[in-house]
């Protein structure tokens, strides 16, 4: 059935791109360079999506054998031909970035960062065959003060601007318009309270992100409950609902890239939290340690937090507590202010004192007082701290194997901050094929409809760090090429 074809359109263009982050920019630039007119719709007042707000590291395979590694990680949730297409396109990233006027440099483990030995996530799963073909890059910039996500955003949005591609901010897309043949021929949107019907002569590309800020969708689909988000508050699953309404299939809805964050009162997004010293541990709500705090993949904190207590019918680690000492407080801010949407509104104090005053960080003279202010079990937390300190002095953590270099006893006074799993992004959304075409529930492409980026990303099971942006750029370009290559509607 045609999806409400309007009597007349308010405007028309060749390609409509819904969502203006890196994937949308890549799609728009590619379509424009192939001669298509492009309209970029963005629901938020500021564009960039999660791409602007994150680290924007980019994986470029060393060669095509990288596909073997990714196929293994996908655990049959993504077809090999899609992975092959991704790898082939990702091999062109360096050249494409150069054409855009940028330059990539290899990401170095020895760069400054948090002082503990983080898991080396250049290669997230080093034991899997083909992993050695992973190479991680970020954008080199002549503005080093910008975090790499912002540098990438400046580069791609600058290229959108130079091509005079029209951008409509504060213009959320609401529905996909189809003709009698089932082709997607336009988008219904809203701007300044007015409904708009936009004709897409060649195609519509959805790059509007996931559903990090949709509690209902998160509760339904994610295996952890009570998950917060760090990035773009505009990611409310709009693209998923639009596609479902026209019979589109969805995939990878249980997958996420998950860090840890503090949900401050009055803030929509959580603050990503780092520890600028070694004197910290993670404990569940009862005060029990549960993991080597320094050896967690930056995108897979959900794994450590996923334990469900069937006896008490609860997730005892959601939220959890980080317990730490003055070493952490003095050393540096617990939020680095370089990523996440809150960086636009709030600068964390360098000595964390403001956040103590606000009650975001709790202080306690001793373990007893710590238990009181956090409602942890006193005996449990006291025992946990005592044992951890013994391990630190001995240089060995028999419970969780925290490396000797990362062991340091925690001295009173103690501090605590309540933390949640906090999404960098979801991965689920419309199922797509190797041409970035969105598929219906029978596995057939919905004509003239494409998707790219985290909206229905190809990462369906295990996630290799830095592949999200890599995928944005790869499938953004594929979608842009294919949409621009369609014959125009009459």
């Amino acid at each position: 059935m045609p999806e409400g074809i309007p009597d007349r359109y308010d405007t028309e263009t060749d390609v409509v791109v819904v969502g203006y982050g890196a994937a949308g920019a890549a799609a728009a630039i590619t379509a424009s360079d192939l001669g298509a007119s492009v309209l970029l719709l963005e629901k938020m007042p500021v564009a960039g999506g999660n791409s602007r707000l994150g680290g924007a590291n980019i994986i470029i395979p060393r060669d095509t054998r990288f596909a073997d590694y990714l196929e293994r990680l996908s655990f049959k949730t993504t077809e090999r031909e899609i992975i092959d297409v991704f790898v082939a396109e990702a091999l062109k990233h360096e050249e494409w970035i150069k054409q855009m006027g940028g330059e990539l440099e290899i990401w170095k483990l020895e760069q400054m960062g948090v002082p503990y030995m983080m898991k080396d996530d250049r290669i997230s799963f080093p034991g899997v065959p083909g992993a050695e073909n992973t190479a991680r890059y970020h954008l080199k910039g002549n503005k080093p003060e910008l975090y790499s996500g912002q540098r990438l955003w400046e580069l791609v949005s600058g290229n959108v601007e130079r091509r005079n591609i029209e951008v409509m901010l504060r213009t959320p897309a609401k529905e996909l318009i189809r003709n009698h043949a089932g082709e997607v021929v336009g988008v219904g949107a809203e701007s300044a309270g007015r409904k708009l019907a936009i004709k897409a002569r060649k195609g519509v590309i959805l790059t509007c992100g996931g559903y990090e800020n949709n509690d209902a969708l998160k509760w339904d689909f994610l295996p952890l409950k009570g998950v917060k988000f760090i990035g773009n508050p505009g990611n409310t699953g709009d693209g998923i609902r639009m596609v479902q309404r026209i019979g589109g299939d969805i995939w990878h809805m249980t997958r996420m890239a998950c860090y840890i964050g503090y949900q401050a009162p009055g803030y929509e997004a959580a603050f990503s939290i780092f520890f600028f010293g070694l004197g910290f541990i993670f404990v569940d709500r009862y005060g029990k340690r549960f993991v080597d705090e320094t050896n967690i993949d930056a995108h897979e904190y959900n794994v450590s937090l996923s334990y469900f207590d069937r006896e008490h019918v609860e997730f005892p680690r959601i939220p959890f507590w980080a317990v730490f000492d003055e070493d952490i407080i003095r050393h540096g801010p617990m939020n680095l202010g370089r990523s996440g949407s809150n960086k636009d509104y709030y600068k964390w104090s360098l000595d964390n004192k403001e956040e103590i005053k606000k009650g975001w960080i709790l202080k306690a003279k001793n373990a007893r007082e710590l238990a009181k202010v956090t409602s942890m079990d006193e005996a449990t937390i006291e025992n946990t701290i005592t044992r951890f300190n013994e391990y630190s002095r001995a240089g060995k953590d028999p419970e969780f194997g925290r490396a000797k270099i990362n062991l340091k006893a925690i001295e009173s006074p103690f501090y605590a901050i309540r933390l949640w799993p906090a999404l960098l992004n979801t991965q689920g959304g419309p199922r797509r094929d190797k041409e970035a075409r969105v598929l219906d529930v029978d596995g057939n492409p919905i004509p003239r409809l494409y998707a790219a980026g985290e909206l229905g990303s190809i990462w369906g099971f295990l996630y290799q760090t830095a592949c999200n942006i890599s995928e944005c750029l790869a499938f953004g370009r594929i979608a842009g090429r294919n949409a621009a290559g369609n014959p125009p509607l009459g």
Partner: protein
Amino acid sequence: MIVLERQFTIGAPQQTVWEYLARAILSSPRLERIDIIDSEHFDALLRVKLGFINVPMAVNGQIADSVHLESLTAKLRIRFVKDLIKLNQSTTFTLSAVDEGQTHVACRVMIEGMGPLLTLFSGKVKASAEEIISGTQAYLERLS
């Protein structure tokens, strides 16, 4: 000018020591309120003890002159209250493999300063520089 030199051996391969060297420098307990500006620059606070008082000094830091696996320099520009003291402290760490599992680390610190209160602080400044090296050494020793 103040010059300090120290050498020590770490029971870990050179590659490993190299990968953690910048973190080790930043781990120094003397450095507080570290604000990482970008991959090379940071700001921080350095507290220098003068009697019973901890005197806070502003630090603009840079990890520079990096020769992969071999050496890098932590350059600190240290200032106290409207340049009553101004110091440039340059600490170069040079690595060399002793054998497969050990790395020799040579540290050389050069401190140049000016300001009306420099003479009063010079002993303490030297002690602080030594503490930064000691902190770095202590961190790296845990790689063994």
